């Protein structure tokens, strides 16, 4: 217990004695981790968005204009009975026109010259979750197209799938960038610890001569590296949070119009904790690298 207290005190003394190098190491580690954090933030948000869009997928079944009211009811019953269908909403021609006017008030004049309402009636179908995969939706849509009374079937699956592909690439980029920046953090911390070790080489020599083991000598430096890494990660989180709030603020009205303002989320608590833990591990690794071969020296 007394030895543990000594090792902790020594680690803190190292940090205090090398304030400038400590600050530089924490700042550069924070910057590299923040760069990685931006990628991670982007990746997690886009993945979340795709997830919610996939949950929200709707298939729109446009009906032929000549379909009678009885035909619409019969078709509604037929589609509702399908095992793939979770719910179904009927949108009449009049409702479609009203929706168009409501959503695009500035473009309302486009339909005025046409006289008759050109918009078709439709069913907006929500599928059962297990049938929301790309293949399942396509199979069901193809089958539905051949049903009498159905003019066209549309769904927004394709661009969602494309977005998923983009996210896949982003995931790869995040791994690559994360690896490079992690290596940079390890190098920065390793150099800082190397400087500390150099500054205290006389003390280390004395410790060796009085019979201190390699582990006893190394532990304060390993602790110091871990603390630097964790502090760097904490600072990176603060920078990211500040940048994130600024981004949301700047997004302002445009974001609200596009409906994406509320879609962005900062890291949840467990991811923030994992980032600090990652910083700690990187710091430990940095120290470990700088002390590699340390124990083999005899005096």
């Amino acid at each position: 217990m007394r030895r543990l207290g000594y090792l902790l005190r020594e680690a803190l003394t190292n940090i205090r004695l090398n304030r400038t190098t400590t600050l530089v190491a924490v700042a550069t580690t924070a910057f590299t981790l923040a760069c990685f954090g931006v990628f991670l933030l982007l990746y997690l948000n886009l993945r979340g968005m795709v997830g919610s869009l996939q949950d929200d997928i709707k298939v729109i079944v446009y009906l032929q204009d000549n379909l009678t009211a009885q035909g619409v009811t019969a078709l509604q019953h037929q589609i509702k009975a399908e095992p793939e269908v979770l719910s179904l909403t009927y949108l009449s021609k009049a409702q479609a026109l009203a929706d168009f006017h409501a959503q695009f008030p500035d473009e309302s004049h486009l339909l005025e010259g046409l006289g008759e309402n050109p918009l078709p009636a439709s069913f907006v179908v929500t599928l059962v979750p297990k049938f929301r995969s790309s293949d399942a939706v396509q199979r069901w849509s193809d089958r539905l197209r051949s049903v009498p009374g159905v003019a066209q079937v549309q769904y927004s699956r394709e661009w969602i799938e494309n977005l998923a592909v983009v996210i896949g690439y982003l995931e790869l980029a995040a791994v690559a960038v994360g690896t490079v920046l992690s290596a940079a953090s390890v190098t920065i911390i390793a150099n800082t610890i190397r400087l500390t070790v150099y500054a205290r080489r006389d003390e280390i020599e004395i410790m060796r001569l009085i019979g201190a083991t390699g582990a006893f000598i190394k532990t304060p430096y390993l602790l110091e590296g871990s603390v630097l890494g964790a502090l760097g990660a904490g600072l990176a989180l603060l920078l990211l949070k500040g940048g994130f709030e600024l981004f949301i603020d700047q997004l302002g009205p445009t974001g609200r119009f596009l409906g994406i303002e509320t879609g962005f989320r900062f890291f949840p608590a467990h991811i923030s904790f994992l980032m600090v833990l990652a910083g700690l591990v990187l710091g430990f690794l940095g120290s470990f690298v700088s002390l590699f071969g340390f124990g083999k020296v005899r005096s």
Partner: protein
Amino acid sequence: MIQLFHVSKYYDRRPALSDMTLQIEKGEFVLLMGPSGAGKTTLLKLLFCAERPDEGQILVQGRNVARIKTSQVPALRRTMGFVFQDFKLLPKKSVFDNVALPLLVQGVSSFDTRRKVAEALKAVGIDHKKESRPTMLSAGEQQRVCIARAIVNGPLMLLADEPTGNMDPELAGEIMELFKTINARGTTVVIATHNRQVVEQVNRRVVTLVQGKLASDEGAGR
């Protein structure tokens, strides 16, 4: 306690020690005498495992230090005490903390540490300066702190490399008297020195080295 069999050590193919055979018994007081470059420090380095011999075998407390594993070196060093010409004290720690360091490394309790450090500081006559920093002490006082650190854990042997270098004869005499007192308690003492005056004052066994070779061994058993 210490046995060397045909030990040689080379630096850049030049022999620092050549075919050295020597035996030091438990409780002996031995002065390693010789000019600079004679191999005195090399011999001490071999004894506390800072170097390995290129040829020959060295037994220290029954262990062959020529073949000892690096991981076993700390345990062996804990049975020894070291005193250096440049003291090697930690300038930012108090006298008490400097002397307590070997005990801390060994995990000795706070209570025992306080008791043993007090005893060691009293033995070297510097217990009134335990709160001071080494930089505030004179050379003689710093050497006393260094000796206190070397004896605090009751070592079986004490190695000293030019412990009275840069000291006036009177101060050197006081330090040597301290070593004799420590030796009288049963600790084997090996001191490397080039100071003839010190050798005459101590009047113990003198092993003389010249250019890495054993030139003479006088007064064994004194």
